[in-house]
């Protein structure tokens, strides 16, 4: 559809006024192309993270050490598939499709969170993911409940409720290990040592290197900068680590009275960029597993489509 210049200007002014007034932008509303593209990129990346994020945890479903823990973990991985579904639906309101987004994921043309390229080596990693990774995700995502795009904001409200629950379960799992046998305590500490820094990287590059941040904040897609959220997360985790009876692997971590925040040591951004470039410990494994599930499932999807065509059933 072509729009005349004065008309485009008027639409843009309506959009800007709605964002300024903290109103929600809805799928049928006019929006700048770049706003639409940014949201598709961000929501797709978020959806992909839920789907890829099932792998490191599903890795432990068959080995969970008690039936209660096994049930909790299965329910969590199921929730993640559900979150992926909400988010693909939210992305679809912007004029893309789940199939198209999955193709881009499989082709390596869209990203997912760098954190899921780390391996789950022990049972305690399941707890560390719950506490730290879900904790970081929630810190990032709670402000998204007020994001300017309505379908994304509403998906985040549902997702954050479940994520908070997962995070408490992860904390409780680590607490049980920390208070358990010596071997269990050591397992918990080792997991926290391996997951701490990658969790801090989940907030993205420092503010002065974050290419999308300023525009996203102006559009009220983002509400806080990467560094603000990272600081908030560190401040939340320090007392929680103390009550878990575990330490965080950062010799520079200390309370700064003047700032009213914890200072913390430098992040290894080289590692971050390597992981983003596909050179993390599990990048190849995660994406080939996803592709494999998709390819091996092709005949099932084709069967469902053929059946639906014959019987006028909605596509499965």
């Amino acid at each position, binding site marked *: 559809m072509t729009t005349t210049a004065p008309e485009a200007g008027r639409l843009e002014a309506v959009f800007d006024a709605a964002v300024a007034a903290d109103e929600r932008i809805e799928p049928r509303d006019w929006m700048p192309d770049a706003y639409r593209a940014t949201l598709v990129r961000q929501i797709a990346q978020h959806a992909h993270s839920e789907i890829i994020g099932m792998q490191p945890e599903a890795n432990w479903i068959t080995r969970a*050490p008690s039936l209660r823990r096994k049930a909790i973990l299965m329910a969590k991985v199921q929730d993640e598939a559900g979150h992926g579904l909400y988010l693909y639906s939210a992305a679809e309101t912007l004029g893309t499709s789940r199939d198209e987004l999955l193709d881009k994921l499989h082709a390596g043309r869209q990203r997912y969170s760098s954190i899921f390229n780390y391996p789950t080596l022990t049972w305690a990693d399941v707890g560390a993911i719950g506490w730290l990774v879900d904790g970081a995700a929630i810190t990032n995502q709670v402000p998204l409940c007020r994001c300017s795009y309505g379908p994304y904001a509403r998906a985040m409200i549902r997702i954050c409720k479940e994520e908070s629950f997962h995070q408490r379960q992860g904390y409780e799992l680590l607490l049980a290990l920390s208070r358990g046998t010596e071997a269990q305590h050591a397992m918990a500490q080792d997991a926290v040592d391996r997951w701490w820094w990658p969790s801090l990287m989940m907030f993205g590059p420092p503010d002065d290197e974050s290419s999308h941040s300023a525009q996203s904040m102006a559009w009220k897609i983002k509400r806080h900068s990467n560094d603000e959220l990272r600081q908030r997360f560190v401040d939340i985790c320090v007392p929680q680590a103390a009550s878990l009876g575990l330490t965080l692997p950062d010799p520079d971590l200390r309370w700064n009275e003047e700032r009213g925040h914890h200072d913390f040591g430098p992040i290894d951004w080289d590692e971050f960029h390597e992981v983003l470039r596909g050179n993390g410990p599990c990048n190849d494994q995660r994406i080939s597993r996803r592709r494999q599930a998709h390819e091996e499932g092709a005949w*099932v*999807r084709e069967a469902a489509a053929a059946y639906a065509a014959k019987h006028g059933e909605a596509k499965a």
Partner: protein
Amino acid sequence: MKEPATSAALALGDDALVLSHRLGEWAGHAPVLEEEVALANIALDLLGQARTLLSLAGDEDELAFLREERQFRNVQLVEQPNGDFAHTIVRQLYFSLYQQSLYGQLAAGDSPFVPLAAKAVKEVTYHRDHAEHWILRLGDGTAESHARAQTALDALWRFTGELFQPVEGLPVDFDALRDGWLAEVTAVVGRATLTLPDGPRSGAWTAGAGRQGIHTESFGRMLAEMQHLHRSHPGATW
């Protein structure tokens, strides 16, 4: 519980535990996201049933993690490897139809299993519905899906006879269960344009001794994976 009721709880609990575990292996491998949710959902229902039943018989974790394969009482059908999606669906179809009738009878009767059965029958009705919808799609979908579904029906058929062996302590009419099951499975498989095998569903050489603790070879490996962490930390709580 009385001894026969305890062994019955173990038999049904082991069925649910083992099938739940197999379905849990699908996490991250399903053909569509909706099936990630559905298979995990069924696995969770079954795990819930297993926990209730094993708790009737003793400590759920001791029973799940510290018995060896000769002590497990599940039917061999539920321990069969997932195979392709058609194998998983056929295993689920055979088993859900069985479980639905079994729990239906138990819920209407008078035994320690009434509360569990009343809850489980609702869950199993959903599992059956899911399996039936998929067998229709696979059977009456493409030539490939039809062939795969038929292969799965044939391959798992020999494990179905065992479902109808009487279980001590279970007040269930197994003859009626078998007749009802056969009628239902015949009907749905027919609607799916597939055929049930002619051969025996049980017999001296066929599967049939899971309830006596005689299992198939893949089962030991499944237990090794399931139990290794629990066994590596004797006495620990999780």
